[in-house]
């Protein structure tokens, strides 16, 4: 009994040391993953910025509060579509065919590639752009969403990282002032640039299969006006504040989803409505011998 009493402090100390080593290992690994993500994304961004056709929205001023941009008056002779330009993210698309798009929210750190792997939705959940293990993972386009042909709703999932990486800063949208200054979301797909305006921000959760409730993550395609209205009315009702943005059957949405801790299986959701299609891009082409 005495031996046990003598050994107990040492035993506790060893346990504490083991736990501390484990914690330090995890922290170190997270730092390494953060650095790896930053470096990879910077390289890809640099490649896009170097593109002669690159478009930067970082200096785009936010629209004044409660004002909407006037719609252009229809003209008698519609202007011809601008000629296709080279995709600024051409190199990234060619570097990894799993990349479905590039997501950018101007003046935020959200400026990442979006991966799409229909055969395994979670493949990039804990993998970097190059496929190596990485706790930050990548942004994931839901397997039921599709950019070509475009579904009514594109759902993008991303980790809510404490470092702010991926969708770690998405929770800032719970603040209405943040929304007013960051209402635009840009999605660069292989074929064109799509511009969205945030229409609703709300908290939700992943529900059980048996539960008959509104599940934002089940809406991808609206074939009827009723389906569209069901989604639209629900997101507007759930929204934390009135964005002043409305939608009608035929509009398309982009839904950004990340974990939230207000309930078990909680999610924070930012839904944006497509407002315009920007540049259309030239096909991604490689030289005949396959070199880029």
């Amino acid at each position, binding site marked *: 009994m005495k031996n046990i009493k003598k050994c107990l402090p040492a035993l506790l*100390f060893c346990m504490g040391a083991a*736990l501390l080593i484990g*914690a330090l290992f995890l922290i170190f690994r997270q730092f390494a993953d953060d650095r790896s993500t930053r470096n990879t994304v910077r390289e890809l961004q640099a490649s896009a910025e170097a593109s002669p056709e690159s478009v930067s929205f970082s200096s785009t001023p936010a629209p004044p509060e409660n004002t909407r941009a006037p719609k252009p008056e229809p003209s008698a002779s519609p202007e011809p579509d601008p000629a296709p330009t080279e995709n600024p993210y051409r190199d990234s698309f060619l570097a990894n065919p799993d990349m479905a798009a590039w997501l950018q929210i101007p003046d935020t750190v959200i400026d990442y590639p979006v991966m799409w792997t229909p055969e395994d939705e979670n493949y990039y959940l804990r993998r970097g752009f190059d496929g190596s293990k990485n706790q930050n993972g990548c942004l994931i386009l839901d397997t039921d969403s599709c950019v070509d042909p475009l579904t009514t709703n594109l759902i993008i999932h991303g980790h809510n990282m404490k470092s702010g990486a991926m969708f770690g800063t998405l929770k800032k949208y719970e603040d209405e002032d943040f929304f007013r200054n960051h209402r635009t979301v840009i999605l660069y797909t292989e074929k064109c640039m799509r511009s969205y305006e945030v229409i609703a921000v709300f908290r939700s959760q992943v529900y059980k299969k048996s539960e*008959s*409730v509104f*599940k934002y993550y089940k809406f991808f395609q609206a074939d009827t006006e009723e389906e569209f209205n069901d989604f639209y009315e629900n997101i507007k009702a759930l929204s934390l504040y009135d964005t002043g943005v409305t939608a009608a059957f035929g509009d398309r949405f982009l839904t950004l*989803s990340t*974990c939230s801790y207000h309930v078990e299986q909680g999610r924070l959701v930012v839904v944006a409505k497509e407002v315009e299609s920007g540049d259309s891009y030239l096909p991604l082409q490689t030289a005949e011998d396959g070199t880029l």
Partner: protein
Amino acid sequence: MKKIRKLAGVLAAVTALVLLPKASVLPAKAAEPVTYAVKYVSDELGWRFQANTSVFDSSNNGREMYYLMQDIKDGDLVVIYNDSDNASDLNLGNVHLSNVTYVQGCHFTIVFAGGVDDCYVLGGSSGTMNCDVKNAYVYDTVTFNFNNNVDNLYLYAADKFNSNLGVSGTVGHLTASTLPGQEPYRVAFDYYDFPAGALYFKDGAFQPTASGYKTPEEHAQQSPQPQPEAPQPEVTQTDSPDPSDEYDEVPKTGQNSLYLWLLLGAGICFTGSFLLRRSEG
């Protein structure tokens, strides 16, 4: 020394609770049954509800059903109002309700639920109930069908039965009588053990679609036997969890906080070790 032992015991318990997050969660006990008044609101083209009341206040439209679906639980009560002929189905999920009432004059309403203890169908109502019912009470003239089994079916009318009523499942006991307390009290029908789909009333006339039901005498003479049941989905006993209790498959996008728990555990271990050493010294 006793103090140190106590302290070490408390530290050990805290460590266990910290390292086993699930153990630190105390499940809440089931809440009291809640009464919901639900109504089909034509202007909204959907069902709306109001909680903690059996009367739907038409001065406001109530809340949308998905809020109810988040809160409704076994044992709750639902009172149904519907004055529209175009109401959509009322799906109350898989909960087992203690009471479902179709109010007087309720227009045709199709209800789905996991089960009902007491179902009241008041005069002038019409609709269907799609789950097993323990006790069904049907008043005056209705147009109604129970699509699953009913243990006890009580029909009440002041004078004459005019209902169109059917049960697609089995019925354990049928009683048709004047209203309780009414004088003179008369019983028109008293039968037992209807096979699935056998019980049917057309304009109040008893028109069994199959033989096999029993009089009270036959029922009393018969030794208990397993009852035939309406076709039910086969349930196999396995150790795997009920798929309906699983969460939808959505990518898990939370950050692993294991390192925080490890740091906390390490801190507690170091503190415990330090205190034990000091007490020995």
